[in-house]
């Protein structure tokens, strides 16, 4: 990758990071600063378009969309984050086990991952939610299950490459126990990759939660996430399109930021692209 291209990449990473941090900050701090409670109904101001009084307009019950967007964002980002932590929490140890010990553990775990990979992700998420019954907790679980194999495969592949390296062999030769090798030598080398994959998984989680909630299979009312807000505004598309458009923009901006960040760092680290 030439200097010009690398700087262009850096710029995208900085942009992505700024967007993601901005969204996170708005969602964390925003609700505290906001003047209107998200569930407050204003009968005199129903379906108002965006204006100075209602910065992002109101919905059919006269609820302020900005406040709902900020509190709904907590749900959307929270689900993405929780699902990612759960997916990494299971997927990373599974990949480590699989790559380090090989043998039957590897075979069993990888066949299981193959099985999970043989479903279209969205169809698998819908099926899991369908079996457990639609709720926020089950949506998180579904997203975690769908995202987990990616961590496991990524980590396994890296471990397989790492364990052939001289420094690992040296550690083994001087009698460092397996646990120590994993903790001191393998994990630190994986951290960067896990963080990148984690960033992209948060974005995937937000998108999947939004899809599930849009289908009515995620957050149940009165709680709201960006996906369920979009669904809610759908019947009013011709009278008050902003009810649906605003949360859609929020989702898109957040995903774009996270993807730029994750993809950008990955490209910077990927030797294949350095030319």
């Amino acid at each position, binding site marked *: 990758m030439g200097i010009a291209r690398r700087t262009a990449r850096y710029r995208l990473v900085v942009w992505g990071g700024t967007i993601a941090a901005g969204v996170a900050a708005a969602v964390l701090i925003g609700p505290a600063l906001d003047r209107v409670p998200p569930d407050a109904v204003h009968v005199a101001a129903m379906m108002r378009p965006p204006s100075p009084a209602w910065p992002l307009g109101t919905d059919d019950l006269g609820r302020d969309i900005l406040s709902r967007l900020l509190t709904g964002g907590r749900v959307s980002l929270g689900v993405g984050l929780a699902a990612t932590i759960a997916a990494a929490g299971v997927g990373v140890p599974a990949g480590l086990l699989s790559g380090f010990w090989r043998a039957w553990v590897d075979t069993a775990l990888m066949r299981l991952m193959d099985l999970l990979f043989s479903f*279209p992700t969205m169809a698998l998420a*819908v099926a899991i939610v369908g079996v457990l019954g639609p709720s926020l907790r089950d949506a998180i679980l579904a997203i975690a299950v769908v995202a987990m194999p990616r961590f496991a495969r990524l980590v396994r592949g890296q471990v397989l490459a790492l364990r052939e390296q001289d420094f690992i062999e040296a550690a083994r030769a001087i009698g460092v126990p397996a646990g120590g090798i994993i903790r001191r030598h393998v994990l630190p080398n994986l951290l960067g990759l896990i963080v990148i994959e984690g960033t992209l998984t948060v974005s995937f989680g937000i998108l999947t939660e939004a899809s599930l909630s849009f289908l009515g299979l995620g957050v149940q009312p009165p709680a709201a996430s960006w996906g369920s807000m979009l669904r809610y505004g759908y019947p009013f598309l011709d009278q008050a399109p902003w009810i649906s458009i605003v949360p859609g923009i929020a989702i898109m901006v957040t995903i774009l930021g996270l993807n730029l960040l994750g993809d950008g760092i990955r490209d910077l680290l990927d030797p294949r692209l350095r030319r």
Partner: protein
Amino acid sequence: MLRFVAHRVILTVPMLVLLSIGIFLMLHLAPGDVVTLLLPEDLQNPQVARDLRHQLGLDQPLYVQYWRWVTHAARGDLGYSYRSRAYVGPEVAARIPVTFELTALAMAGAVAAALPLGVIGALRRNTTVDALISGFAALGLAMPAFWLGVLLILLFAVNLHWLPPSGYAPPGQGIGANLRPMILPTVTLGIPYAAVVLRFVRLSVLDVVEADYVRTARAKGVGRWRVIVWHVLRGALIPIITVVALETGRLLGGAVVTETIFSLPGVGRLAVDSVLSRDLPILQAVTLFMALALIAANFAADVLYAWADPRVKYQ
């Protein structure tokens, strides 16, 4: 080649066994009792419940039930719908053509758009054109499919009245009547897929443009377009074919959302409806179909890859 295919088929068998166990367990992992779900309010008493449980074979050990389910499923009998009491198999099968049409259209459209855009992006790399194309891909991936669908409906159906917001006409009513309501769903489903393929085409072409055989061709004085089509594109085609097939899961999964937005009577919409009405046998059958379709697509990807690349060993 035949040996490769045979070997690949054998590899699929344990996968199918695992898959069948997973799908079978779906009904048993669901909280709540199937029998309570099946019985109407006024028939809810322990005696009737026990009889029904016996009739359905639910009092048998799990492995007996599994075997029964698998042997029935292999013959196409996937049980009854909880709601309509009709056979699940025909109900799902009737929906397949709609989903097939939608995904095929989206795939064709997406590849037709992604191929030239990706090649242009790679040949003009690091220019404004490349940045615009890559930007389109990034947006396509960040845009939730349902939101894109909503925007398209808003623009082309609600405001401009050019296209219907929803609905489906079987091909029997004429190609025009059939295709018109499919345009918006195809675009909705196709754009994220096109974004993935486009990125991949761009990278594959970038890999190939600097290959020695391309340089040789150019040095021999082969014309620019001939080099692009005959040497660059051909070399890049193998990974592209693979990604087109491997990303079929994205299309099938996307169909779940797209069909729901546009009220298309496909398999995906059936999945969502079955979840909302707790009709687990239907959901089970749809999930099975989705997985089989994806396994078939992956299989096709492997075979195409082996067929297109002589370096792949047939063993």
